[in-house]
């Protein structure tokens, strides 16, 4: 059901049947290591290219989620997936091997919640029995496509972010005991004129704040409704700016409620500069860490606001500014 300007309220409350989070060795050294289902020590995952390695990450996350739920590919009605590679090859090639009817998405790093929101809408309308939604990213594959060769010695500024090597997958269905999805807010593209691809946090922060504000308005709630509100991958720079923007707009969120997946996944590691980014970031942190905390009862209601920078390697060379988007999904314990 449409709520307000751009939100859906799911009256049937789609249930999270199972989730999976996988990561690389660098993610395995971070503070959330225990929340991953599998950590791969080899960034190649035994493949002969980074692109194939990313596909393997995504495939494995999907298989783990299905195994946990005791489901087979033929039980899943639809597969929704997105990633950062040109022509979303990681997702489409995974769909090739899974053989599940597939809708490919591109919302950059917001794809995780874009996929989950659409999956819930499909279920809510009675259009599916089970839907698998997943996203992935690979540090080296992204560096290769968006920036310089991995081993090239370019000095990065302190606002730069580190693309997560990882994937997250979720299966939602109509029945179960897991947390449920109660609603979602689809964001609009916001471009506040940032054009530096090494400053994605500052580029994406306004989109995140916009979606959060609209979410509260559409549902007639405020930040106190949630135990946890997390943006996808703003990193420390974007997080600090987002807090300032919220203050300016009169949105008050307590510091212990608002966090960012891009800050949590690596902790205070100077190697990652401002924090993490990538489709795998919000997906792995949400489907691993946050849902584990929900299962333990530490969080009862949470809002995940996945943020995406919709640039291409060519657009910033042509001096285009970076259009950004954020989608919010509301998780609650049933």
């Amino acid at each position, binding site marked *: 059901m449409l709520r307000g300007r751009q939100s859906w309220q799911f009256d049937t409350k789609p249930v999270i049947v199972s989730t999976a989070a996988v990561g690389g060795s660098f993610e395995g050294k971070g503070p959330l290591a225990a929340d991953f289902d599998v950590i791969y020590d080899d960034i190649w995952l035994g493949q*002969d*290219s*980074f*692109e194939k390695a990313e596909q393997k990450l995504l495939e494995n996350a999907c298989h783990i989620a299905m195994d946990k739920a005791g489901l087979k590919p033929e039980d899943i009605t639809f597969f929704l997936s997105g990633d950062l590679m040109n022509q979303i090859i990681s997702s489409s090639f995974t769909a090739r091997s899974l053989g599940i009817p597939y809708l490919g998405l591109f919302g950059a790093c917001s794809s995780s919640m874009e996929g989950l929101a659409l999956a819930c809408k499909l279920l809510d309308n009675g259009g599916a029995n089970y839907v698998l939604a997943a996203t992935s990213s690979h540090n080296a594959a992204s560096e*290769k496509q968006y920036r*310089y*060769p*991995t*081993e*090239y*010695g*370019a*000095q*990065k*500024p*302190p*606002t730069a972010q580190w693309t997560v090597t990882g994937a997250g997958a979720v299966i939602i269905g109509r029945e179960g005991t897991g947390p449920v999805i109660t609603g979602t807010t689809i964001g609009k593209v916001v*471009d*506040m*004129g*940032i*054009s530096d691809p090494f*400053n994605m946090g*500052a580029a994406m*922060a*306004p989109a995140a704040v916009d979606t959060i504000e609209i979410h509260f308005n559409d549902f007639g709630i405020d930040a106190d409704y949630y135990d946890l509100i997390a943006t996808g991958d703003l990193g*420390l*720079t974007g997080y*600090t*700016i987002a807090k*300032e*923007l919220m203050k*300016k707009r009169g949105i008050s969120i307590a510091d212990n409620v608002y966090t960012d997946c891009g800050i949590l996944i690596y902790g205070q590691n100077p190697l990652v500069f*401002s924090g993490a980014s990538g489709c795998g970031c919000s997906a792995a942190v949400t489907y691993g860490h946050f849902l584990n905390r929900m299962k333990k009862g530490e969080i009862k209601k949470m809002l995940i606001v996945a943020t995406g920078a919709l640039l291409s390697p060519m657009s910033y060379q*042509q*001096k*285009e*500014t970076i259009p950004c988007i954020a989608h919010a999904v509301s998780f609650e314990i049933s």
Partner: protein
Amino acid sequence: MPKRKKLTTAQQDYANTAKALEPKRPVVKNVLMAFVVGGLICTLGQILQFIFINYFGFEESQAGNPTAAVLIIISALLTGLGIYDHIAQRAGAGTAVPITGFANSIASAAIEHRSEGYVLGVGANMFKVAGSVIVFGVFSAFVVAIIKILINGVGGL
């Protein structure tokens, strides 16, 4: 070349807000590190040249070639072993400007695109970072040579 679009007032306001909260590039530290590391690499080159002249019987005018070759090999090795980019993050222009930076840009691109094959991958992408250095380096050399000829033509300095 495309020009950057003019920012709206709201975008300009945001740029100011964001700028105030962003961590700054440590420019002074970067410049000092570049000076020290770049200087060390040049000193290493000087030592190598000294060795080639005194122990391998090279003329001073010829010793530059094997010196450059050794620096290139070291740089390519460190690139292949995944160490060079970590040094470069601290050294900045100090590792980018000397011949080692040039070798790193070629070796890293060659490694990166190995998965697309030798012709369309390695061959076509090897110079994707170094290419502009070659193009503009050769062009500036040409301009400087013309200036030199003109000055000599009017009787020199």
